[in-house]
């Protein structure tokens, strides 16, 4: 896995989790297949080459496979996860789960993972506050739960199998080839394409790509190959993970201690995962020695202090880590797109690393597909940088604020934190200042050249009814649109409006559907029912209006009449107006 810290790097430099010890997991192994290029002198140019089969690279590969876009995915080893160890990410948001639903792996994730919606925060022996996301209106309408916890490598494994399944149904020119044991050791950028040197057990070979997607993680070599510039901040906060299997079942809740009496008044995180494994994350002394804090004796002593002598447990995995925050100034340089940890690195609080990487992949996938299949101009691709750079910068800012709360500088920062914790025990207002991580959200896009001011928001996967009364959801409609834009026209439609929608559908990559209340007579060719008004609510709309959805479930624009404004919104959504704006 490209994202794994190299053995030569001390954990003190890693944002990933370094394996220390533990019984670990048995991970799947994938065969190295000698690629034809090794024995062939001619250099083949591929439309898309993805580097790194972590969760972001695999999400992109799976999304392209679903769209029938040929691609090559290169990974330096032959498995998912960190070999012989545990996963890094554990917590997946509703938006990520909705994306996985579209890719066809959500059911497996839901079966294997653990749902949770209750979080409790403690300081000392007291519960400072708790929340239940199920009670919050903004989470309850989607078919996917607010969060599911599962070891990252399970999702990666499901995506590999899904890609193989999609490949089996596709012709050779529309497949996504997974090439294991293939490390990129050289790179050269040319006008309109790039050349990569790939090293394998059978030798090296050159590969050309129109579009290169760097999903190779925190230590990506592409940063220096491309001359990428970035902002980096490294703190002195140190943590140590213990993934532990208990004999007694654990509550499916997120528990966080800002000041844990059993951890010398430093923070502790406790999360449930699949296989009855808990992830327990201990904050250590600033600048603590990773080798020392991860020693088996120390970890056992820490667990004993937290759970007492009578609870039986088994250590699955231990990993000390340090995080840094880092954000590239541009997420696209020439032919190269940066996604996931290659684009930005955040502290783990709030699950904003993996989830936003999945969103990066989902954002880029439909744009690459639209451009490569001739449905949109190449200018659409620049909006990946606009939208996901805004998201990356937001996520870096949000996680840095959490870091400052969890590891306050000595002096006044610590005084204010004590004031907040003391007040929060007594007064509800102060609880909003307790920052143990702001959970990842579907970041809105406010400065995208392909979204109108009415667009840029994610639409939840809410329920609807097909014209025949059968149950459906937004994901079904997006699948039906099949990589095209999806127009939802709410309420009544005039005959002229219906004619316009048919014409527009013939000229642009767009499918239209009328959304109406039960009892109304639909006029458009395709219609669905929205008996509870959830679809309209999810589109942030009222009354007679239209919503233009993109394949990534984001609104490109909303409007009222089916007129020139809609035509302009469709053109803008596929990048046809970006040049004029610039």
């Amino acid at each position, binding site marked *: 896995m490209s994202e794994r810290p190299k053995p030569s790097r001390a954990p003190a430099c890693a944002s990933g989790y370094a394996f220390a010890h533990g019984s670990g997991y048995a991970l799947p192994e994938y065969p190295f297949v000698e690629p034809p290029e090794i024995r062939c002198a001619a250099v083949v140019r591929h439309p898309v080459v993805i580097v790194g089969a972590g969760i972001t690279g695999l999400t992109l590969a799976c999304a392209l496979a679903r769209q029938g876009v040929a691609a090559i995915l290169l990974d330096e080893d032959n498995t998912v996860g960190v070999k012989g160890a545990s996963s890094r990410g554990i917590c997946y948001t509703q938006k990520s789960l909705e994306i996985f639903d579209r890719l066809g792996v959500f059911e497996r994730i839901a079966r294997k993972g653990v749902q949770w919606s209750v979080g409790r925060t403690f300081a000392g022996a007291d519960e400072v506050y708790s929340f239940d996301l199920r009670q919050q209106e903004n989470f309850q309408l989607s078919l996917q739960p607010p969060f599911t916890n599962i070891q990252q490598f399970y999702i990666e494994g499901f995506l590999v199998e899904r890609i193989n399944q999609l490949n089996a149904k596709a012709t050779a020119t529309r497949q996504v080839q997974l090439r294991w044991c293939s490390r990129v050791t050289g790179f050269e950028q040319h006008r309109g394409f790039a050349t990569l040197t790939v090293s394998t057990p059978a030798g090296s070979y050159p590969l050309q790509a129109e579009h290169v997607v760097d999903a190779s993680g925190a230590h990506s070599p592409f940063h220096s190959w491309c001359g990428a510039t970035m902002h980096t901040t490294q703190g002195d906060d140190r943590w140590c993970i213990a993934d532990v299997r208990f004999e007694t079942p654990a509550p499916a809740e997120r528990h966080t201690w800002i000041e844990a009496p059993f951890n010398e008044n430093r923070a502790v995180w406790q999360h449930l995962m699949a296989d009855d494994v808990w992830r327990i994350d201990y904050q250590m002394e600033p600048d603590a020695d990773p080798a020392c804090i991860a020693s088996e004796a120390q970890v056992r002593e820490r667990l004993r202090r937290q759970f007492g002598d009578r609870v039986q447990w088994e250590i699955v995995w231990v990993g000390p880590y340090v995080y840094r925050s880092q954000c590239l100034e541009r997420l696209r340089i020439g032919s190269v797109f940066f996604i996931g940890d290659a684009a930005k690195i955040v502290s783990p609080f709030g699950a904003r690393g993996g989830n936003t990487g999945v969103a990066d992949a989902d954002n880029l996938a439909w744009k690459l597909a639209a451009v490569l299949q001739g449905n949109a101009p190449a200018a659409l691709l620049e909006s990946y940088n606009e939208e996901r750079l805004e998201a990356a910068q937001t996520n870096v800012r949000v996680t840095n604020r959490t870091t400052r709360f969890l590891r306050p500088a000595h002096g*006044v920062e610590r*005084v*204010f934190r*004590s*004031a*907040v914790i*003391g*007040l929060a025990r007594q*007064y509800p*207002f*102060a609880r909003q*200042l307790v920052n143990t991580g702001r959970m990842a959200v579907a970041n809105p896009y406010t400065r995208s050249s392909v979204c109108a001011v009415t667009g840029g928001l994610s639409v939840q996967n809410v329920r609807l009814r097909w014209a025949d009364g059968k149950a459906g959801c937004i994901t079904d409609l997006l699948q039906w649109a099949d990589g095209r834009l999806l127009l939802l026209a709410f309420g009544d439609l005039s005959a002229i409006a219906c004619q316009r929608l048919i014409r527009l559908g013939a000229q642009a990559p767009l499918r239209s559907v009328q959304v109406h209340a039960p009892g109304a007579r639909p006029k458009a060719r395709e219609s669905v029912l929205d008996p509870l008004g959830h679809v309209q609510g999810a589109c942030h709309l009222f009354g007679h209006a239209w919503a233009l959805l993109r394949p990534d479930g984001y609104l490109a624009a909303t409007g009222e009449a089916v007129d020139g404004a809609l035509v302009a919104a469709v053109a803008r959504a596929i990048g046809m107006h970006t040049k004029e704006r610039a």
Partner: protein
Amino acid sequence: MNISPKLQDADAFYEQLLDAHSGLSRPESELLNARLILLLANQIGDARLLAECIVAARGDASLANAR
């Protein structure tokens, strides 16, 4: 930010503020001040107003007086 007088009883407020600190150690006083700032900030609520107050409090002239 309101810079015209608004306190109903300025002298009494000032006295209460000083009295609240009497008998406290330096760290205890600092904690009291921090708690008070947070309580008052919540009474204001308005983000722009709070930002203006922070800038005004940080003003170079008043910090120079303190040194």
